[in-house]
């Protein structure tokens, strides 16, 4: 996966160790410490960077796995560590003063003041921007700080402020902050009746789909609910984020890097998305119009639907 992304033109790839210290703790994903060393070495030969996500919040009384992940990332000569927990950031700063730190989106640093705090206190070099900010707010963010910023452009759309959401643990006991998972697979079931397909999370019906409706992974906030007897996708439609059309605007807003979500995806998917964004950014560099790139990836969107999310203010 990492190799597929780099061969397709990604400048950097995020990865995590195979445990609860990263927010993509799904079975079958992630790296052992030995694999990490190998991956970093391979990426270096290709001129690419490996960034290690240690972005869950350490469990009280059990800080050791998080410290160990930081040490392992440093030992593997990863290019940066991406973290959110104050304890993890403090450990990285004191145990490895020269390690490059990126602030994870899980830190939910949504204002210039929040970013400045992390930059000044922990020497953070890059902030991954929350997906709830509009372009206007990103522009203000970058005008106020000189720290690099990175924005999500493709993949899942978290509609709640990242890491300020406990909906999943409320229903099913596990959540992104503490377990690195949202709407965990072990709590998901599908029930087929004559009325249709009902995806459930820990027993709660998240939707009811007719035979002609596509069934994506049932993430809680993309479910259909009732308010005063009216059914709707109250939080967010089952869409995914595609900000391909906003690349120029993000660049103008001062964003340094764009991030594509690749979790639980196949190599072909990763290669195609990374390749498309590489081509679009290169075209942008040459001063070309991006019109022909706009719809390159539309068929990959969840339920066939995509959105530019909060980047356009009307989303709110």
């Amino acid at each position: 996966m990492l190799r597929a992304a780099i061969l397709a033109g990604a400048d950097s790839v995020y990865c995590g160790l195979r445990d609860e210290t990263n927010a993509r703790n799904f079975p079958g994903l992630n790296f052992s410490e030995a694999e990490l060393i190998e991956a970093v070495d391979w990426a270096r030969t290709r001129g690419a960077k490996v960034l290690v996500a240690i972005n869950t919040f350490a469990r009280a009384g059990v800080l050791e796995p998080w410290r160990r992940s930081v040490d392992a990332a440093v030992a593997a000569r990863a290019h940066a560590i991406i973290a959110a927990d104050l304890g993890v950031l403090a450990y990285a700063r004191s145990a490895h003063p020269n390690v490059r730190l990126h602030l994870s989106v899980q830190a939910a640093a949504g204002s210039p003041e929040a970013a400045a705090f992390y930059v000044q206190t922990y020497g953070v070099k890059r902030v991954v921007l929350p997906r709830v900010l509009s372009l206007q707010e990103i522009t203000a963010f970058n005008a106020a700080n000189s720290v690099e910023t990175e924005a999500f452009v493709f993949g899942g759309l978290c509609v709640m402020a990242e890491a300020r959401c406990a909906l999943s643990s409320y229903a099913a006991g596990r959540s992104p902050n503490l377990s690195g998972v949202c709407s965990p697979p072990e709590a998901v079931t599908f029930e087929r009746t004559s009325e249709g397909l009902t995806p459930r999370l820990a027993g709660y019906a998240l939707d009811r789909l007719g035979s002609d409706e596509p069934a994506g992974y049932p993430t809680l906030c993309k479910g259909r609910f009732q308010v005063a007897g009216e059914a709707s996708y109250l939080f967010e439609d089952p869409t995914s984020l595609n900000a391909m059309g906003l690349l120029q605007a993000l660049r103008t807003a001062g964003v340094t890097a764009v991030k594509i979500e690749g979790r639980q995806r196949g190599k072909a998917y990763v290669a195609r998305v990374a390749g498309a964004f590489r081509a679009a950014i290169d075209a942008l560099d040459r001063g070309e119009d991006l019109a022909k790139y706009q719809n390159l990836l539309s068929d990959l969107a969840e339920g066939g639907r995509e959105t530019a999310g909060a980047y356009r203010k009307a989303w709110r």
Partner: protein
Amino acid sequence: MTARLEITLGPLLFNWAPERVVAFYERIARETDIDRVYLGEVVCGKREPLLGPALAEAADHLQRAGKTVVWSSLALPATPRDRASTRRLAAYPDLMEANDLSVLQDRPPGAAFVAGPLLNVYNEAAAAELMSRGCTRLCANVELPLRALSHIHAGCPELELEIFAFGRLPLALSGRCYHARAHGLHRDNCQFVCDRDLDGMDVQTLEGQPFLAVNGVQTLSHGVHLACPDIALLQAAGVTALRLSPHSADMVRIARTFRAYADGELEPAQVEAEIESAGIPGPLINGYLHGRPGRDWAG
């Protein structure tokens, strides 16, 4: 001898009419022996100008009744106006409650603050970091079980520990207003429709099962969290204060119940029965305290 367990009142999360707000806090001032009251708009910066004068009047009543008033900051400051009001509050040297870490950037060095439950403080290392910046009290994130609090207490014994003891659980925050969305509006033109639901707008599954409650940009639990385990468990975890979150139920009665519980005059089962009959908007839950899904009732 163990110190008296404090009862505190958390910030009002809902968009109540100003006259209701004033009357509510007047009663709290006059009829309860709540020790400390957190005031301030935490959820939506758009509500701040509407509520400001009412909260100022409430602060006056509460202080004259001998209660400590602590101002709470917005949980998700984003607009220039949100940021300006957060910076103003942060710069004030009095004790305040931080609900977003941006506050620390503008806090005068050494000025004390409470870390609110909407911050992501999940372990003793993070708590120690905040203490080094002036944090004197942590109101624990609602996801934390009692055993996590014990670890935080062991790592930071000087830190006062408050827990979210009563109310619908604050579960999520967004840039998008779901009250507005449910009414076919956008946040920028929301018409303040969140004022129609005193305890949040009920959200059910398609099968009619009660699930969540929406309060503007915030999502809350449908269930009403109640933390009243055996007092010895709270003491062992280092808990020094119990926070009650304002609801339209009889908060004076609820506050008195908690005072009696904290003083050892009521057993947990009696507290449950009292709270259940006080007009609460959902069934009792307490799963998080016991390391289970938040919606559970662990008994």
